[in-house]
């Protein structure tokens, strides 16, 4: 990769990570005033804030790299579905509380390992974002793992809901560990995280938690992928139409 290509690749990589954080943060923020009890409402909002904050850091870095006057908001508000490159797991509608916590747990196990690896990035800005994210993800994981155990152990209903959530989510986890050419090149340059290498530890941790929560590990016979190429579930378009409403209805204004 020459310098110009690398510059563009890092920009795209930052946008990808920003997209992951933004759409998940959006889904979490939908819980505000809808959580099962007030303390949990505040906790979910906290995690939403962390993720949206993370998106802002990645987008701001991408904006800086673009050098063409784009801002964090250009990335969030002015791209359509096909240009969003988040992994699909992050965008799935929030579902019930079991679905939200199960997704969060699967993401948290991944995000913590991912951010720990990103700490070692040759790109100091990415490593700097990771440093903040690692601390947050540690707390997120402690919480979501605890919820897995509570819901798995709780009542027949909570167990059934958690099992069905894990079953519905499982096929979306595979693409977390797949790298396209862009990411492979950035891995070779010591910039990006080799997410494929995170899989064994993730598998072991998730299986141990599911086991402790008495939840069956789903058979690995289905998988959906496409987020990094902008092939999304239809739900993303609706998410964006809500997220981007103001910027689309009143283009180019300051708020």
């Amino acid at each position, binding site marked *: 990769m020459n310098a110009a290509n690398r510059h563009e690749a890092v920009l795209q990589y930052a946008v990808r990570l920003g997209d992951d954080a933004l759409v998940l943060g959006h889904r979490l923020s939908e819980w505000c005033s809808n959580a*099962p009890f007030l303390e949990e409402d505040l906790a979910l909002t906290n995690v939403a804030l962390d993720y949206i904050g993370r998106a802002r850091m990645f987008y701001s870095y991408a904006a800086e790299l673009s050098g063409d006057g784009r801002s964090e*908001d250009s990335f969030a508000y002015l791209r359509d579905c096909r240009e969003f490159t988040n992994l699909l797991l992050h965008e799935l509608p929030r579902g019930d509380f079991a679905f939200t916590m199960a997704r969060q747990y699967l993401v948290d196990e991944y995000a913590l390992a991912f951010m720990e690896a990103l700490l070692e990035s040759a790109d100091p800005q990415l490593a700097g974002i990771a440093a903040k994210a690692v601390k947050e993800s540690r707390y997120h994981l402690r919480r979501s793992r605890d919820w897995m155990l509570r819901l798995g152990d709780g009542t027949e209903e909570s167990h059934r809901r958690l099992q069905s959530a894990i079953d519905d989510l499982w096929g979306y986890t595979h693409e977390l560990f797949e790298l396209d050419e862009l990411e492979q090149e950035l891995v070779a340059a010591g910039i990006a995280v080799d997410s494929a290498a995170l899989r064994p530890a993730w598998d072991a941790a998730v299986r141990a938690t599911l086991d402790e929560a008495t939840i069956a590990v789903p058979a690995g016979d289905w998988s959906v992928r496409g987020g990094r190429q902008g092939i999304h579930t239809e739900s993303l378009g609706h998410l964006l139409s809500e997220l981007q409403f103001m910027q689309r209805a009143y283009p180019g204004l*300051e708020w």
Partner: protein
Amino acid sequence: MTTEHHEQDLAALEQRFQARIDAEEKIEPKDWMPEKYRQNLIRQISQHAHSEVIGMQPEGNWITRAPSLHRKCILLAKVQDEGGHGLYLYSAAETLGASREEMNQALHDGRAKYASIFNYPALTWADIGAIGWLVDGAAIVNQVSLQRTSYGPYARGMVRICKEESFHQRQGYHIMMTLARGTAEQKAMAQDSLNRFWWPSLMMFGPHDAESAHSAQSMKWKIKRQSNDELRQKFVDQSVKQAEVIGLSIPDPDLQWNEQRGHYDFGDIDWEEFNRVINGDGPCNRQRLAHHVKAHEEGQWVRDAISAHEAKKRQRNDRQAA
């Protein structure tokens, strides 16, 4: 009540209680207090708590649509603060013997009220500005006064809450300022919002002193420290200047500086509307309550799961210990 208390007669206890109030002593949870004082406080504090929580809905309704990531984070943090205020206040009411479950039930049954302002809809982004500026602004005026309320846990809760409230008002005012300085369309959006929220904000202070059902006794017990009309005047005076600074006009033709009083005179409040909205015919009364009930009912299985898990954990621990 202890036997020692039984020996004294009620009148003496009440006299001593009033003397403590008069001496500006704070009443604490374990202290003797008249039953009516307790009930009055539970009513007021739980209503205040419900207002914080129901108030999350109109603003929460804009979190996913906030016009920039910066505004989105501020709004999320703000709405989260309001939930936190609800928590402090429920805890303060719990020190008086009310339970969260009972208070929630009273809200759902319509026995407990919440601030009627939240029965108005947040329709445009400017409403997020107006709510922060005016609704939080009015709440602050009231809450600053309540920092000196006679019940200790309530007063301390207010001190904590007031620290966060000024950020709420500033962010709202800043949204309004940005719109007022923006395009004609943005300015119109801000003005429309001020037009809709001005009078309901004045109503937040409640009926005129002469007509206020709970006022006289509450003032004597120093649950309330300033009258509805005094607080309302304070709010009008500060808001008129703030509106001027950003070039928006208060929708009141009778608004005028009164040199003699050193205050602004303002027009008559439409008390019919006030009563109509309080009694259920506001634009959002039904949705606000239905939203809260729905979240509570949908969360039942989660709360059940926690209790079942805790019970099982205790059993497992007991078995291990045995």
